[in-house]
């Protein structure tokens, strides 16, 4: 097990290095020049060239890459071209809203999806099954921004139950923090509910057809323990895998949800940076996202051993 974890952590370094090269090359080869954007609409070509020199953007690409990767290895993700603020500081400032949103989404989506999926499988073909699958299909089909606008219109503008936008740090006011997260978490969680509910239903259907379930029923095991202890636990591996994959969906969804609800998280940070070609921020955020994704996959893989003792590394 320890050797496996060590191998996976070593592979993390390789993945990060590859991501670093790809991100750097894609950004610098794509059209767009931060110097031209900084200089503004009235700048002359000479002024743009001056800014480019100051930013070191006129140096050879390999030289720029070496300088950047050397700094990254020493923990320095660089400084934002526009705001002059260290990227690590900017990411640190934006981490809490994004983490809060992600955790709130998971806290809402995973239990709801599991209940829907288990119920749908237990009563396959019934109205419960059809209703839960309607929720799932809607969750998949409705884009986050459409769901977001509808939620805002109904629950914020019309009913005034929740604020339209913004974020309150948890240290400032816990109740406000929660109030600001309800609508974004519901919006972002809908697709996640759909994904997990569908895979839960499909896996549970397979498991419920197994001999040991029939045996459990014959022994008179109550429905609840039979579904949760005997069936759901054995269906756990694919569900956990999908939850892990879903984190990638979450990362993508965070960008849109944070924009719609004006949450100052990492998603907003990277979108703003892309529009301005703020290379250090884009590179830094993608590296962080990649690391998070790799670590989540590792955690998911390790969790298999707890769900299914037959799995050994």
């Amino acid at each position, binding site marked *: 097990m320890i050797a496996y974890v060590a191998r996976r952590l070593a592979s993390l370094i390789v993945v990060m290095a590859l991501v670093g090269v790809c991100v750097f090359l894609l950004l610098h080869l794509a059209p767009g020049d931060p110097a031209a954007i900084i200089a503004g609409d009235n700048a002359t070509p000479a002024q743009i060239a001056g800014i480019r020199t100051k930013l070191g953007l006129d140096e050879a690409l390999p030289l720029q890459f070496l300088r950047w990767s050397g700094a990254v290895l020493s923990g320095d993700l660089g400084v934002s071209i526009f705001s002059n603020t260290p990227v690590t500081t900017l990411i640190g*400032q934006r981490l809490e809203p994004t983490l809060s949103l992600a955790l709130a989404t998971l806290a809402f989506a995973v239990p709801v999806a599991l209940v829907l999926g288990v119920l749908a499988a237990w009563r396959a073909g019934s109205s419960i099954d059809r209703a839960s699958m309607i929720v799932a299909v809607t969750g998949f089909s409705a884009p986050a921004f459409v769901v977001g606008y509808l939620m805002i219109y109904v629950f914020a503008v019309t009913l005034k139950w929740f604020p339209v936008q913004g974020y309150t740090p948890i240290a400032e006011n816990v109740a406000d923090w929660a109030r600001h997260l309800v609508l974004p978490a519901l919006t972002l969680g809908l697709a996640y509910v759909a994904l997990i509910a569908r895979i839960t239903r499909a896996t549970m259907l397979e498991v419920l057809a197994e001999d040991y379930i029939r045996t459990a029923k014959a022994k008179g095991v109550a429905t609840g323990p039979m579904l949760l202890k005997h069936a759901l636990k054995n269906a756990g591996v694919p569900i956990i895998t999908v939850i892990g994959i879903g984190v990638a969906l979450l990362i993508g969804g965070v960008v849109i949800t944070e924009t719609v609800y*004006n949450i100052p998280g990492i998603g907003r940070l990277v979108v703003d940076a892309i529009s301005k070609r703020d290379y250090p921020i884009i590179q830094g955020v993608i590296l962080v996202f990649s690391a998070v994704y790799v670590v989540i996959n590792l955690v998911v893989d390790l969790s298999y051993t707890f769900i299914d003792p037959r799995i050994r590394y």
Partner: protein
Amino acid sequence: MATTRRRFVQGSVAAATLMAAPAIGRASETPAAAKTLKAVMQGDLRSFDPIWTTANISSYHGAMIYDTLFGVDGNDKPQPQMVDSFGTSDDQLTWTFKLRDGLGFHDGTPVTAADCVASIRRWAVRDGAGQHMFLRVKDIGAKDDKTFAITFSEPYPLILDAFAKAGTPVLYIMRKKDAETDPMQQITEYVGSGPFIFNTRETKQGAFYVYDRNANYKPRPEPASGMAGGKIAKLDRVIWENVADDQTAIAALQNGEIDFYELPPIDLIDQLEADKNIHVEVLNKSGQIVWCRMNWLYPPFNNVKARQALLYLVNQNDVMKAAFGNPKYYRACASYFGCGTPMENDENTEWFKEAPNKPKAAQLFKEAGYDGRPVVILQPTNFAVFNTADQLLAQWLREINVNAELAASDWGGVVTRRANREPPEKGGWNIFVTSASGAAFGNPITLVGHQANGDKGWFGWPSDETHERLRDKWAKAQPQDRLAVAKEIQRNAWNFVPHVYMGLYLQPAAMRANVKGVIGMPELIPFWNVEKT
């Protein structure tokens, strides 16, 4: 130790108190809601240095925390602001300025003439008007703590216009130590002498920006007018919220979560006008001009006939209608100096009465020797107005058998590619569309796009000696003579066609009905004089 229910409750209360402690501390410093205004401005404030960048939002930030030597009033006339008295020598070559009493930076130090001189020097490196002025400056220096003088090699009557202009970069007065920063690099401390203080402690970059009233500011006695007059901060705090999504900002305004929204989409204005709690107003009456730049370096637009063809091809009303819909908020504009500006005139605008005239445009392209080569139009798909204008222009060109090709990218891609002087087939371009404040077009010196000095000038690189001579003549003219020279410039300009206008739109701002006193002017949104009733 066993956890009892009582211990759990005690622990929870203690934890909640600890978590709320920072908020309790802050609450004592936070002004009442009635004295706090929350605004959604045109974009995120990415740079705090209004000289380093020409971004309008950074200039707004500058207007909050810095003061200016002069400011344009509501009639576009320069008026003294930090300056108490000023005068020129008999030979008109030396200008002397004396600062008024009571000026102080937010750190408590007094504003001195040396601060002003350093600020002028840094600004002049980055600003078109400053560069134009400094070509003639022989000497600039402080005479004493409150007086400085500038000596020119020839009379320069435009000096007050340059000092007072509201177009970016504005001449904001910084501390000497900040103003001595390399103009190509950003300042790192944001200490001004203006009516608001930048609260860096409570600002969260990318999320919101906090400005507190400067209780020590000494406003001028005159009533506020444009950037001139008494800058009285009636609000204790102004917060700029960075809301990127239009729908969200509108919902937040309707819900009372924000008080002011600078750029609501014009197609949603009807919705806002129908809300009795919201007031909609055009603050910049000279509007925003959408204009089309042609690349003079390559065919077909290296030929004057092809450029003239675009004058006859473009239907400004159609562009504006497609982009904005509601005719209340747009108009066509024929004057080279924009519409509603002091230099507006109708010299040599017969083409405007004829346009659109596609047969004539087709004939002019033929006379230009157009050979069917692709005409590359840079199309920023993330900029709705320019995207619409580009698509219409491409369609009209195709209708007269010009092989128009749209090169799609985001705006960042356009601003990069437009600097490329290679031929269009090698990454260059033929046409791009952009916009600028209508007021900026009224001054042939300050708007860099008014230059026609070839490869030293702005993208498109137009070249015309007569135009440059006339611009110089305008710069030397006394204020009362400038309109006559402007007519000469326009007569010549619409013959050689440095660029083509695609319409003028008036952007309304939306605010809660209890927000009063917002000063309407081009280029800037000042928050002094504003109050919540």
